[in-house]
């Protein structure tokens, strides 16, 4: 009897190598048994129906039964060793990924990827205006970090924030509608690309570096309230030289705040490469007295394990820790930067082909029989649809009403008069 299973397209050697799951064989045998039982039941029980229909029904039952019983439920992968600063030990050298986690990470990263590409499209159509800093290429960072903390922890980042808005609980719909400045936007059209907020996510911040002390303040509140939560405070290689970040390193260490500093090093601060901006490009050591880790930011498992390690460090009361994620952005700094005047197309292409975070996860899952190509394609289709629907909403939802001009100036306040462009126009604020 021919095997109904597709043969996986050969082993693919990943960075750092990987182990095939040893449980694959046993699972295949068990599910073969189950499948045979299902087929015989179908054939026996449908004597009154047309033969071909029965067969196709059986085939679709075979196809659907595949997803539950046949895949490897979990696999362990070797991950790249992390460079350590002032640490005796680092995160583990292997990571265990369940099928469920893998599908979740795949879907989330693909959603971020497609959402950012759609934003690119809408920007070029002039439906999105102003600043738009895209995150494609860096997906493993946002998704991996979220895999290492919980939604009751806190996170703050700079302006390349769409991915984090999603991982922190925002929907594609409300993110895109914010980019297009509509009333259904996550900030009702008042904030735009750089100012999106969700529970325990403090933006989206436009001033380079300012978010880092803010994050330490959130961490101070966690310690003050004794809630065992922590704050992840992100910044880029460009921001890493900001004075206020060093001020924050100092106070966080003095007061042992539960903060994870994360430098997303995508090699370029706008058009300036790290070599041209920083006397030391070892960003994971720049915290000096703060222990540091340098992590492969293109590997979602690496990021996740490092984040778990860092979170344990914080929660055990040891104070701050610093992670440098080595990552890459495919787009330029923002939509007004083509991104090829300070780096070569070859460089971008090389990263895409060798280190793409989504491809890396996909290859791992396929070569370990944790998912099928069809299944992943279905996810891609579902993601595309989600993005299309969101874009449709974002382009058709109306803009905010003019009444919103003066809303949300102050919290919990009586209405007051707001000076308009001329003394005769009367505007009133609302809280």
């Amino acid at each position, binding site marked *: 009897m021919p095997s109904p299973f597709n043969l996986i397209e050969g082993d693919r050697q990943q960075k750092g190598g990987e182990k095939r799951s040893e449980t694959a064989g046993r699972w295949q045998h068990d599910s073969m048994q189950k499948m045979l039982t299902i087929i015989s039941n179908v054939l026996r029980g449908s004597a009154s129906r047309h033969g071909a229909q029965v067969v196709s029904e059986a085939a679709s039952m075979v196809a659907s039964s595949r997803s539950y019983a046949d895949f490897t439920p979990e696999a362990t992968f070797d991950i790249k060793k992390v460079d350590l600063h002032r640490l005796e030990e680092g995160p583990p050298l292997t990571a265990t990924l369940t099928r469920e986690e893998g599908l979740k990470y795949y879907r989330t990263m693909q959603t971020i990827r497609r959402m950012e590409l759609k934003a690119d499209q809408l920007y070029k159509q002039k439906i999105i205006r102003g600043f738009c800093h895209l995150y494609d290429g860096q997906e493993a960072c946002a998704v991996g970090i979220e895999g290492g903390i919980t939604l009751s922890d806190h996170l*703050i980042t700079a302006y390349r924030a769409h991915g984090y808005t999603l991982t922190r609980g925002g929907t594609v719909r409300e993110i895109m509608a914010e980019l297009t400045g509509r009333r259904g936007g996550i900030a*009702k059209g008042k*904030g735009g690309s750089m100012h999106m907020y969700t529970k325990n996510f403090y933006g989206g911040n436009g001033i380079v570096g300012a978010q880092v002390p*803010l*994050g330490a303040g*959130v961490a101070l509140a966690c310690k003050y309230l004794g809630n065992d939560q922590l704050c992840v405070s992100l910044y880029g290689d460009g921001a890493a030289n900001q004075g206020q970040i060093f001020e924050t390193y100092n*106070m966080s260490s003095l007061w042992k705040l539960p903060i994870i500093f994360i430098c997303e090093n995508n090699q370029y601060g706008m058009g300036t490469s790290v070599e041209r901006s920083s006397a030391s490009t070892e960003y994971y050591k720049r915290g000096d007295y703060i222990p540091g880790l340098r992590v492969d930011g293109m590997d979602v498992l690496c990021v996740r394990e490092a984040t778990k390690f860092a979170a344990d460090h914080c929660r055990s009361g040891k104070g701050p820790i610093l992670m440098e994620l080595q990552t890459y952005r495919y787009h330029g700094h923002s939509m007004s930067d083509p991104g090829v005047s300070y780096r070569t197309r070859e460089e971008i292409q090389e990263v895409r082909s060798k280190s793409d975070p989504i491809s890396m996860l996909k290859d791992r899952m396929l070569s370990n029989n944790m998912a099928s190509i069809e299944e992943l394609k279905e996810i891609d289709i579902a993601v595309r649809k989600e993005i299309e629907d969101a874009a449709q909403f974002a382009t058709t939802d109306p803009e905010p009403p003019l009444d919103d001009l003066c809303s*949300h100036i102050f919290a919990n306040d009586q209405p007051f008069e707001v000076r308009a462009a001329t003394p005769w126009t009367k505007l009133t604020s609302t809280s």
Partner: protein
Amino acid sequence: LNENHFLSCLVEFSKTSPAAVQVNVRDALNQAMDEELERDEKVFLLGEEVAQYDGAYKVSRGLWKKYGDKRIIDTPITEMGFAGIAVGAAFAGLRPICEFMTWNFSMQAIDQVINSAAKTYYMSAGAQPVPIVFRGPNGSSAGVAAQHSQCFAAWYGHCPGLKVVSPWNSEDARGLLKAAIRDNNPVVFLENELMYGVPFDLSEEVMHKDFVLPIGKAKVERQGTHITLVSHSRCVGFCLDAAAVLAKEGVECEVVNLRTIRPLDVETIEASVMKTGHLVTVEGGWPQYGVGAEICARIMEGPAFNYLDAPAVRVTGVDIPMPYAKILEDHSVPQIKDIIFTVKKVLNM
């Protein structure tokens, strides 16, 4: 709001009742903070020397001893960092009081005050309130020279999303600081070092632990009929002194204490100008684009203009960096004689 109104009414009512106690501005601020720290566990104070040193100007004396390290926090000399930390703590639900040793040092941190604190509630469409108070001494002191003498009322007063408060006496200091701490919005609280040691009589009602003054409401300190003097902070005292001298010559000045720079209580000023027909603003800060300039512009644009019998005029600090030598410093700030001179000019005396 009802509670505030009730208590403010009580204060007005008991203006002529015997004073309960004499309290200087420093102690009024101290007591206000103490009471608010006790009332709400989320309130805490951070800044340079606020804890073990008892405050650079002793405004926070005794608080660290009473509340400890968790709630009274000494910071390193890193304004941008600790102001950002204070704002972040407010994001996460605490109610920080962030002290700048003087408002001159806030320039190091001004991005956090404006871009992180003032604008966030608006940018987030109401998702993220910022219940923070920034406080410290503002404006000129005595002999501290140019880098330590600037008045920031106009700069902060310029920005939507901030409330900016400038108390004059102990009642102002007490009531407005308590209101600021209880306010769910970022408040810039501009004190004055030379007022810290000045005592004022405070009634029983004012000493009540829930006494608050409404932010955004000016107070008429002295009734008058011939001319309106509008001022804030230490200059209010100078206006009252000038008014006392002018009264001897038969000129009755109405003195308005702004109490709040933003939002500006233009209604109280307009009502006064419509009564007296003459306006002089008095401030310690520089003239260009200042508090007085704003008041004059608003009067021009509003109903009170038609009641003016003479152009509105400003008395301000001299438009120079503050010099050190006493004789020069004395001539860099508005003096009582400048106010008297201006009143007479405006009244064509």
